[in-house]
């Protein structure tokens, strides 16, 4: 019962309450929820531009890639520079070669022949011939004392040493005749006509002896100049004396004649020729086509061909010396050679010599040519000193001396051929050598993709003390030289006809000079600065290095054109062209600088509710201006570029102008004393908002730079920094909201 009492009433209440509670629970637990909308503000970096003096032109990180750009001098001052190496050029390849085939033929004439014979030939007029009717030793009377007609002709012994000799005229030498009065007679006068003992008895001289007493000897001579002496002579003798009576005459008495020759100078001899005096000759070989003069050179390769041929019937000794060549190891060792030549007989091969002289490792020394400092100088030459000695006729197989025929005009013939030379180095005087430097085409990428900047600043933006620096520290040429360089600056952003500017620069280069400055503080030439202020995006550098007397003799040359300078086989012109210019600015007219176009694309989404901007300006450059932020919707970037220009600022203005404050300038350093900063809040109006939400949106900053107060020094750290951040308010889930 109790169970039933408890359950029945309570269960109804509980059940009703439970059903109500459950129904309420189910009814309430079906929330209607969804995605709401809300506005969210996001702050985004909107635009940031650093108008740094470095970034105005280029960025430092372009240096490695482009071989140039902007770097800094000591103290941080900006320097524009571009370095471009030029290909190394071997200077001396052609100068150290002598390609010649100069041939010199010369005979060495044996010249006057000297017959210096010791041979003495004799004749005798006996007593019997002197005394007509001589009957033996006795006293005879001589009234008058004369040589009888029958005794006047006296044949002399033959010369063994010669058959014929033609004596030169004049001073050809004498024929000596000695008279020995082997009688007791005293001769007042004895006249001996000397004849060749041949048909017609041509007379070659007369000798007169005076007062030849008994037993006396007297020597006289006759000049044989122009005569022909032959081996057989005959004397026609006349004699007179005072003795008349009582003179004892022995059968052994007589007039005895002896004759000889001494140092007879002949131009023809047929006989036994002895060693003649040396004959010397000096000959030269001219370098016909060599304009470059060598003073001293080390021969790496070279040949001289010497051919010697004996054109005489005698044995000859030939000695040739070429003093222009000495051993590099021993400079006292002069190039020389000698030969023994046999007579020019048919079949004797030793009568000539062909010799090749290899001249490696020899020093060649030459004199500057005659008239080297005149307009018509002679050729350089090599001297040959020759000595020929006629040794004689030689001997036959049995050791017997050979009689030969020789004339004074006989000769030893020599031929010298100077062939190709290669030198390892030389000292010399070059005439005109031009070393072309490869043309350098420099793309100055410092302005890359910043054509607007170039266009904007051209004419207002100056680079001071620009210079071209030729770095030759790697070069080994030790000659003074003349550098001729043509530099063309091309700014393709300028109108046609104004794009190119060309200047030619000429500089003298001292031997060993490392650096050549053109323009800049070391060289008073403003043209480089003018070229650089053309703001080229392309520089073409072409030129050559000229060495040689033709250039060094120019009026403005500081060098002696005839001073020899060394050249080596490995001499190179190596180096680079460096363009550099410390940056100094002088903006003379207010200039709008157009930053690059930013393509935003579809613009901001339609959920954009509002936009506020905050610009923070920091300036360390002593110049001022205004910043304008402009934007618009355009079909493409090209159209946008044309439209978003300074002239249309008011039409497309989104925000601005933002005033760029000018910091105080230090009059000495021409830098800002300290940075100046400002913060500007910018409201973006409804019109601007409509632009920003349009499609194909392009945006650009324009910085209008006001004229500067004189020059401004450019330093790496100096810049106008403009940072713009934007707070944009979006409505999230706006579409659902709508």
């Amino acid at each position: 019962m109790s169970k039933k009492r408890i359950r029945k009433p309570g269960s109804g209440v509980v059940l009703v309450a439970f059903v109500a509670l459950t129904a309420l629970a189910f009814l309430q637990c079906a929330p209607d929820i969804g995605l709401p909308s809300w506005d969210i503000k996001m702050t985004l970096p909107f635009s940031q531009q650093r108008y740094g003096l470095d970034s105005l032109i280029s960025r430092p990180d372009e240096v490695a890639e482009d071989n140039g750009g902007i770097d800094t001098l000591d103290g941080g001052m900006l320097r524009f520079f571009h370095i471009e190496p030029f290909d190394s050029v071997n200077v001396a390849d052609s100068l150290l070669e002598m390609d010649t085939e100069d041939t010199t033929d010369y005979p060495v004439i044996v010249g006057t022949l000297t017959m210096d014979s010791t041979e003495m030939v004799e004749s005798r007029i006996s007593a019997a011939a002197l005394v007509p009717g001589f009957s033996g030793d006795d006293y005879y009377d001589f009234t008058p004392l004369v040589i009888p007609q029958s005794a006047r002709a006296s044949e002399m012994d033959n010369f063994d040493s010669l058959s014929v000799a033609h004596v030169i005229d004049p001073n050809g030498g004498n024929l000596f005749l000695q008279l020995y009065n082997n009688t007791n007679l005293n001769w007042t006068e004895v006249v001996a006509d000397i004849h060749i003992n041949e048909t017609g008895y041509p007379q070659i001289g007369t000798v007169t002896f005076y007062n030849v007493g008994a037993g006396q000897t007297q020597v006289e001579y006759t000049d044989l100049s122009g005569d022909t002496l032959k081996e057989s002579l005959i004397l026609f003798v006349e004699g007179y004396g005072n003795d008349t009576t009582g003179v004892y005459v022995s059968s052994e008495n007589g007039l005895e004649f002896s004759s000889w020759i001494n140092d007879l100078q002949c131009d023809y001899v047929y006989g036994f020729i002895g060693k003649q005096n040396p004959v010397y000759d000096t000959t030269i070989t001219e370098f016909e086509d060599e304009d470059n003069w060598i003073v001293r050179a080390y021969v790496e390769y070279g040949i001289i061909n010497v051919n010697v041929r004996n054109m005489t019937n005698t044995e000859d000794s030939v000695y040739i010396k070429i003093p222009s060549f000495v051993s590099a190891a021993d400079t006292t060792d002069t190039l020389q050679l000698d030969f023994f030549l046999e007579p020019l007989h048919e079949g004797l091969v030793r009568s000539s010599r062909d010799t090749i002289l290899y001249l490696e490792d020899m020093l060649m020394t030459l004199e500057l040519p005659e008239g080297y400092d005149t307009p018509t100088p002679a050729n350089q030459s090599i001297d040959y000193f020759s000595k020929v000695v006629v040794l004689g006729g030689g001997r036959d197989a049995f050791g017997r001396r050979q009689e030969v025929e020789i004339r004074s005009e006989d000769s030893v013939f020599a031929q010298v051929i100077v062939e190709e030379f290669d030198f390892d180095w030389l000292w010399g005087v070059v005439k005109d050598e031009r070393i072309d430097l490869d043309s350098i085409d420099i793309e100055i990428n410092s302005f890359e993709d910043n054509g607007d900047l170039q266009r904007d600043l051209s004419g207002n933006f100056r680079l001071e003390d620009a210079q071209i620096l030729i770095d030759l520290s790697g070069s080994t040429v030790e000659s003074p030289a003349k550098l001729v360089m043509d530099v063309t600056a091309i700014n393709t952003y300028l109108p046609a006809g104004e794009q190119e500017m060309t200047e030619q620069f000429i500089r003298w280069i001292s031997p060993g000079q490392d650096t050549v400055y053109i323009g800049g503080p070391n060289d008073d030439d403003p043209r480089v600065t003018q070229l650089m202020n053309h703001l080229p995006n392309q520089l073409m550098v072409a030129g050559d290095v000229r060495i040689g007397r033709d250039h060094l003799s120019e009026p403005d040359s500081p060098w002696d054109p005839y001073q020899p300078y060394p050249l080596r086989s490995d001499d190179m012109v190596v180096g680079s062209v460096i363009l550099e210019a410390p940056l100094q600015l002088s903006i003379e007219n207010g200039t709008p600088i157009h930053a690059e176009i930013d393509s935003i694309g579809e613009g901001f989404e339609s959920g954009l509710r509002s936009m506020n901007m905050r610009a923070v300006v920091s300036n360390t450059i002593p110049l001022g201006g205004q910043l304008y932020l402009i934007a618009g919707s355009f079909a493409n970037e090209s159209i946008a570029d044309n439209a978003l220009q300074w002239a249309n600022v008011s039409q497309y203005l989104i925000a601005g102008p933002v005033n760029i404050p000018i910091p105080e300038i230090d009059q000495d350093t021409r830098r800002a004393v300290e940075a100046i900063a400002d913060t500007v809040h910018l409201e973006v109006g409804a019109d601007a908002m409509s632009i920003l939400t349009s499609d194909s949106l392009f945006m650009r900053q324009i910085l209008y730079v006001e004229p500067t107060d004189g020059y401004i020094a450019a330093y790496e750290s100096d810049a106008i920094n403009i940072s713009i951040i934007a707070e944009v308010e979006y409505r999230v889930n706006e579409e659902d909201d709508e």
Partner: protein
Amino acid sequence: MSWRKPGSLILLTILALFIILPGTAQAFRINHARAIGFGGSLGTTPRGVEVVGWNPAFLGLQDNPRMSFNTPLVNVGFRISNDAFSINELEQYFQDGKLLASSDKQAILDEIGGDAFELRGGANAMIGGVSFPTNQVNMAVTIDMIATGDAEIDKDFLEFALYGYTLDDVGVEKAFHEMLLEGVVLTRLGLTFAKQFQEFEILDAEWLDELSAGISFYYNYGLEYGSMDHFDGSYYVQEDPDGNIMRMNGLVQLISPDFGKGSGVGLDMGVAAKVLNRRGVVGLSLLNIVGTVNWTNIERRVYGLSVDEAPPLEGLDDFNDWFDENFEPLDTLTSADDHSQQLPKYILLTGGWWLQEDWLITGTYRQGLNRVAGGTTIPRLSVGTEYMVHPMVPIRCGLGVGGRSGINWGIGSGIRYRCWQSDIGIGYEKGIFNSASGMSFGISTTFFFDAPPTDPFKTNTYWQREAEQSGK
């Protein structure tokens, strides 16, 4: 939008979760309709195939049906909750077309008490199960499906999403990090054995009427798994003369396997007893004492982006190219990696007492043993009661305290007609009805055959009738 824009993806994913999920999952456990009605204290009432997932030993008690089974579709439950918003607040702030005012934004943030906004959800569905006796033990074979997911969203991130980054914030870095997402879907094949002990008289405990022990083995087949186990991000803007500074970076690591690449085993153990003339029922179970799912062919996708300076506005019209040029996204895929996922482990201590015929009170103490997805180590105590207002209609309610849910309550009812028993339950967390910030709902249907009454006041009558029928 593609994976190449992870920032956008992550933002949208988190916002979607924030918007879509109005509640949180409570734990990795079956959201049984009757358990929801008991406020989480299913206690001592499961019998037959329903014991699986609670205490397998209950299958060994004498009052089990000879056979029971349940079917899909009508055995489902879910639990969703968050730690900040009630249903009313959700309706207040999250409405299509509503424009959040600044006060709304602040109110939303104020509702989030801690550093993070937590979302939890879980669902279970019984695909099929049957219990039956054998000569030695009672057995149950079950197939069920479980899904659970946890999310923690950094409050700073929500503040950033609502307020953005204003000019006043310039120079201040807004950072957010340690946002987590994890979800798992798996199917379990369970095999449960339970046996009643007859010789417990040796304990000489007259108060002990029945004693049983049970064990459940599971084969866990993982279907889906996803985890965002790392999220960091920050936003910073600063004007600077050398260039505006904008730092934006984020790093997200997502882990997911191929479909069906998870497998593992599970083990539940328990003991149960009826005491004091069967008016009291107690049970102790260890759930998922072994419980893992090993996922293979895991892909770890690391998405990151960073930008150290302000990206130019130019090129925004071609977003993909603009993103690639200005951001540094990471996209690292590591395949063939394995990932072992621990399932939540619990100790469950349950008790029930029949106050009188048709009136049962229950209590449950749950202690989680690990902090994994769906699990917590915060203890939870719940009590409930069931009253049979009609022999066919029970009503029940309950109240729980602790765990991740805080305070929750539930009500439920059902219908019992012959072998058919259906239940329904609905529960709320941290509030009443629409003031609650989480809710649970479940329905269940089980067929019991030859089921003795569990009500001890009816049990003797039952057994007497059984004996009489046997005697006849």
